[in-house]
């Protein structure tokens, strides 16, 4: 368990540096380090599928972020903050913090999976009958492509829409000028 604490503290330190540094390229690289350490943490939490996906997504995401920040002149933000905005943000953060603290009390201790506390949880059925009913040895794959395939269909739709949006935003010429 000690390794999880060490990795978690590393992630928090990297997040603080990424938030507070002035240089955008350093901030982006710190975000990349958060993602790689997160992938390591998924591996220690017995989730190898997610570890693989996270590590390759992190590489591509880092490429996208560096594309955005490199060779732009780094704009330094002058600090004339509006009073109203500061008050609203402080109140919002405080409210979410207090609500989260309330929720944290109700969670079971770390290490006791929540689905073992619930009788007739869906995960029990997936674990015990997944091989017989779908034939896939990887239970995670049998969940995303057989038991809950609607989820994957929705994911494909969202990905398609986001790419459509990105290529519409980045189009070279606007339609108005053509016509």
């Amino acid at each position, binding site marked *: 368990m000690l390794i*999880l*604490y060490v990795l*978690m*503290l590393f992630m*928090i330190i990297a*997040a603080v540096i*990424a*938030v507070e540094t002035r240089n*955008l390229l350093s*901030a*982006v690289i710190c*975000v990349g380090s*958060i993602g790689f350490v*997160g992938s390591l*943490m998924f591996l220690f*939490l*017995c*989730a*190898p*599928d*997610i570890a693989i996906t996270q590590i390759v997504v992190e590489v591509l*995401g880092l490429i*996208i*972020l560096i594309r*955005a*920040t490199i060779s*732009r002149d780094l*704009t330094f*933000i002058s600090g004339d903050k509006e009073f109203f905005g500061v008050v609203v*943000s402080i109140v*919002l*953060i405080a409210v979410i*913090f207090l609500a989260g603290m309330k929720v*944290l009390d109700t*969670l079971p201790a*770390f290490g*006791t*999976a*929540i*689905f073992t506390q619930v009788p007739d949880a869906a*995960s*029990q059925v*997936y*674990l*015990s009958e997944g*091989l017989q009913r779908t034939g896939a*040895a*990887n*239970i*995670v794959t049998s*969940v*995303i492509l057989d038991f809950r395939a609607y*989820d994957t269909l929705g*994911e494909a739709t*969202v*990905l398609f829409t*986001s790419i459509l*949006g*990105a290529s519409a*935003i980045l189009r070279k010429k606007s339609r108005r000028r053509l016509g």
Partner: protein
Amino acid sequence: MLYALCFLLFMIGLYCAITKKNMVKIVIGIMVMEYAVNLFLIMLGYRTNGIAPIIGKGDLNPETGQVLSSFINGSVDPLPQALVLTSIVISLGSLALMISLCIRIYGKYRTFDITKIRRLRG
């Protein structure tokens, strides 16, 4: 305790997304929040000394082909893993959408500052 640290990571991302004025910093804050939420969902399904939810040859009963109860009682929760798997790929798509918006706005206004953008739109 690990849940609390994860919540702290989420709060750092939220603080960054709310108070910063640089657009790339806002995107970074949203990404940090995504990491925290994914990590929290995986942690909820973790079992002490658990094993990954992948059936090998050693987890099957040699005669009947049934899954042994040691696997069922020792494996971590597969459901949050499946949901987080789709969520990670979607986060990459939304990251690309946000970054393309940032690039477009930079090309038009030559700045990443959101207050200046509001001022220039006259």
